[in-house]
């Protein structure tokens, strides 16, 4: 079987093609062979640009041609025949006995004398195409031996991962794996049994660890159940809770080990609050400096928290806020991508379907509405309503903060220090402040949601974000005013003020917990009863994710503030989180339904992690830093009594190690580098330069992406042009052939919509 010269030319041209893209000239008078050559060349060149692999001969071009044009003649090109055939594909394949895998025909030696199995592969590829088993652009084209040789060259671990990730059925993966193993076995001349055994047993150990870890993960089954019934966004609340629990457990463990146990062991005083800790050095061997231990434990914990938060935040941000180039309005396809496959409950699936339909309709009508521009008076009205709502919200927040401050400093109502513990009214008056704070936290968000009803936003997502921002402003202003009160007013009024602050934080946390329970009962249970029995129009209450997550963030901020003043506070926080998890789960199953606008779970989660970092963690850290750096510790209690500021322990420690020469370098580093301002100026300057540099790189990449997108669009236009030309050629050819009426029926008929009407004759 002779190969037509056009194909030879094409192959030859492929091997000598330069790497970069050339402009192709399209001659006006194109004859058929040149047209095929052009198409092949263009497509295989595109191929090389896309896949950047060594071009193997004909099958790739052929299947590429078939992919881009889906012409039935692809098979004939494979057989080296005239690409504009007189026969249709079925008859060609019928020649091969109808078997796609085995080519029985003895005279068929493939293209240009290629061996039989290569030919079989070609036929199989094309018939697989026709029968609809298109597996993607690279896999059918890579010959199996190429794949095997690629795999053999990788390390064992990468090889396993690569084999697992092949999008093939199980049997084919097994075949490839066996081939790879046999090649590897034949390659290793010296039997490295020891090394192989070690690596194999290590791999098994790791797999065993992975499966054992599944048992250790708490709440694994419960979380799967919740995700299955309510979807991923509600699940994100519970995952957030679990993550916070890890923080608190960690802090509990290290505080207990490094601060509490030495205290109990040696000093026998109350260890719950700051005041109970003694600042003396344990002189017995091994010497344990309690001051340094306290300082460094708290500092290490906060630094680790910060690092972990920054890491999670940046990873989440990178995953979820990817560069959005191209048309993004509407997000219709994104809505379809957000179908939650993890939901398995039938009612929930039906519910999700209804929601998706409603959301699609809404987004479609939004797009239509965007086209109708609002006139000026409407816009002014909307803007003024927005401004009014913001003023009201901010006014409420400021008013509440001021109220808390005056309540706290009023000697009659709440602030009675130096009272005897038996005075019940005085005890009760200390509870006034926490109760008021918790009531504010409960009621004002409801007021905010009422306020937001008067204004209208074009985007429902904007509404969610705005309500989150307002609630965050409220909570942070309350916490801010409390911090100010504790750091400014209290130290001058109470003798052992750190313990007082610790007690206040403890009370706040307890009351927050109690009001959370009340919220579950009244907010969800009663609303459910009212909604279903009495006022049917209200319906079953939705699970408000944003409000619940903000409550968690608020409690965690309090816990971080309180760590310095009460090292065992994490105990309460851990217990609290455990109980809230189970109660919320029960309440969810009994009372609530999933939220309606549940898309974009991943983005909202990034926002929550970012909120946890700033302002929550940063605020707590700055408060603790201010206390350690600038405030004078109380002189009667606590480990830092007698010092100017708690930070002075570092100075006395470095002074103590200045003497012996082997630790002199530590002192030198501390004194001349960490304490000098020049060092920090230099570091800031270097970081600014690096940031600017990276920003410029990002801008350059954005431009590159735009250019590449434009190039893809141009390629599509090229393809359409070439196919048009092919069609014209076909027509001309058919007209010429119409002189032979007996062959007329067998020439394939191209209609203009050939792309959509693939003859499914396989």
């Amino acid at each position, binding site marked *: 079987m002779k190969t037509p010269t056009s194909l030879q030319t094409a192959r030859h041209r492929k091997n000598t093609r330069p790497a970069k893209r050339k402009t192709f000239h399209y001659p006006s008078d194109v004859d058929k062979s040149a047209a095929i050559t052009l198409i092949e060349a263009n497509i295989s060149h595109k191929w090389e640009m896309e896949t950047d692999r060594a071009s193997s001969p004909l099958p790739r071009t052929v299947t590429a041609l078939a992919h881009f044009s889906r012409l039935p003649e692809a098979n004939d090109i494979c057989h080296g025949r005239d690409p504009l055939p007189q026969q249709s594909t079925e008859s060609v394949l019928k020649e091969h006995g109808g078997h796609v895998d085995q080519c029985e025909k003895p005279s068929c030696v493939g293209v240009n004398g290629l061996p039989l199995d290569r030919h079989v592969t070609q036929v199989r590829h094309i018939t697989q195409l026709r029968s609809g088993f298109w597996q993607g652009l690279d896999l059918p084209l890579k010959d199996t031996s190429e794949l095997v040789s690629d795999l053999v060259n990788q390390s064992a671990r990468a090889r396993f991962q690569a084999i697992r*990730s092949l999008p093939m059925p199980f049997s084919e993966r097994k075949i490839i794996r066996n081939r790879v193993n046999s090649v590897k076995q034949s390659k290793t001349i010296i039997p490295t049994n020891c090394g192989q055994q070690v690596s194999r047993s290590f791999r098994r150990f790791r*797999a065993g660890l992975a499966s054992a870890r599944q048992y250790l993960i708490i709440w694994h089954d419960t979380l799967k159940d919740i995700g299955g019934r309510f979807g991923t966004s509600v699940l994100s609340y519970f995952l957030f809770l679990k993550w916070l629990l890890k923080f608190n457990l960690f802090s509990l463990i290290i505080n207990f080990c490094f601060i509490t146990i030495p205290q109990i062991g040696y000093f026998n005083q109350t260890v719950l609050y700051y005041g109970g800790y003694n600042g003396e050095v344990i002189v017995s061997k091994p010497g344990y400096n309690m001051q340094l231990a306290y300082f460094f434990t708290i500092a290490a914990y906060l630094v680790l928290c910060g690092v972990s938060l920054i890491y999670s935040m940046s990873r989440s941000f990178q995953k979820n806020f990817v560069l959005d180039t191209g048309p993004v309005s509407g997000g219709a396809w994104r809505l379809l991508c957000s179908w939650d496959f993890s939901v*398995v409950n039938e009612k929930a699936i039906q519910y999700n379907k209804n929601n998706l339909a409603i959301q699609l309709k809404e987004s479609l009508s939004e797009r239509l509405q965007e086209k109708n521009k609002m006139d000026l008076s409407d816009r002014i009205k909307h803007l003024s309503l927005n401004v009014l709502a913001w003023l009201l919200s901010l006014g409420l927040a400021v008013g509440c903060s001021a109220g808390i401050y005056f309540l706290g400093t009023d000697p009659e109502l709440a602030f009675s220090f130096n009272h005897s513990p038996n005075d019940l009214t005085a005890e009760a008056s200390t509870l006034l402040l926490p109760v008021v704070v918790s009531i504010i936290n409960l009621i004002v968000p409801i007021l905010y949601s009422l306020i937001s009803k008067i204004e209208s936003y074009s985007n429902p997502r904007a509404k969610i974000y705005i309500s989150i921002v307002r609630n965050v402003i409220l909570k942070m202003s309350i916490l801010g005013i409390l911090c100010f009160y504790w750091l400014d007013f209290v130290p001058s009024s109470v003798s052992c003020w750190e313990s007082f602050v610790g007690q206040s934080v403890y009370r706040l946390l307890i009351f927050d917990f109690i009001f959370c329970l009340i919220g579950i009962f009244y907010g969800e249970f009663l609303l459910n009863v009212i909604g279903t029995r009495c006022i049917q129009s209200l319906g079953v209450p939705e699970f408000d994710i944003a409000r619940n997550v903000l409550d968690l963030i608020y409690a965690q901020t309090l816990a971080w503030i309180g760590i310095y003043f009460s090292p065992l506070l994490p105990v309460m926080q851990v217990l609290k989180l455990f109980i809230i998890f189970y109660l919320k789960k029960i309440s969810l199953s009994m009372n609530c339904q999933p939220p309606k606008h549940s898309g974009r779970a991943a983005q909202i989660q990034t926002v929550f992690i970012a909120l946890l970092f700033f302002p929550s963690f940063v605020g707590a850290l700055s408060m603790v830093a201010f206390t350690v750096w600038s405030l004078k510790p109380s002189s009667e209690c606590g480990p830092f009594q007698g010092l100017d500021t708690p930070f002075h322990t570092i100075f006395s420690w470095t002074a103590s190690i200045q003497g012996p020469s082997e630790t002199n370098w530590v002192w030198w580093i501390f004194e001349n580098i960490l304490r000098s301002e020049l060092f920090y100026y230099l570091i800031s300057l270097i970081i600014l330069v690096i940031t600017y540099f990276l920003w410029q790189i990002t801008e350059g990449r954005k431009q590159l992406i735009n250019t590449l997108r434009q190039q893809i669009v141009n390629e599509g236009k090229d393809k359409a042009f070439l196919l048009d030309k092919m069609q014209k050629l076909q027509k001309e050819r058919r007209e010429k052939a119409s002189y032979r009426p007996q062959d007329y029926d067998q020439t394939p008929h191209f209609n203009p919509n050939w792309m959509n009407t693939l003859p499914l004759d396989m």
Partner: protein
Amino acid sequence: MDLFAQKKIQSTEPILIPHGELTFLTKQEILLAHKIFSELQGRENGPYSARVTMEKILTLPELKSNPFRKRICHVFSTSDMKDGSLSFEDFLDLLSAFSDSATLEIKSHYAFRIFDFDDDGTLDSRDLEKLVNCLTGETDDTRLTAEEMRQLISNILEESDIDKDGTVNLSEFQHVISRSPDFVR
């Protein structure tokens, strides 16, 4: 989707090491799958070569209400008769592709094939229309009108069809998926 929510392992079958290396499932998950598959077959021994019909697979609680259950069976089935029946290895393929540790490429590859209702290798407007109808329900008030459907499909194609050929092929689909982080489940 994960089948292993509430069940514990009791079986003591021999360890299926090659299956563990070729899929994304752990040893326990493979044993559990073995057990479920044997139950579906109705007998307890050697299900390695036999196939379970599509109707029986669809009785699994996790697949029963899934709107794409039939497409899933067709995509993962390697039977010659194209009847959607699954062997044990096909079943493992199915579980592996839906497990939490499967890569994004595998998930998007199989999702593309599931959405490709006519198996021609691209998502054209008819595939998209069937997809939207599958996801939005069959009752009259949730079904989209023809006009809305047309508008929706043109929006989708405008967003995802990069080379403007009127269809979404695998690379374009994977590109959209990579920009939409909600997908991974």
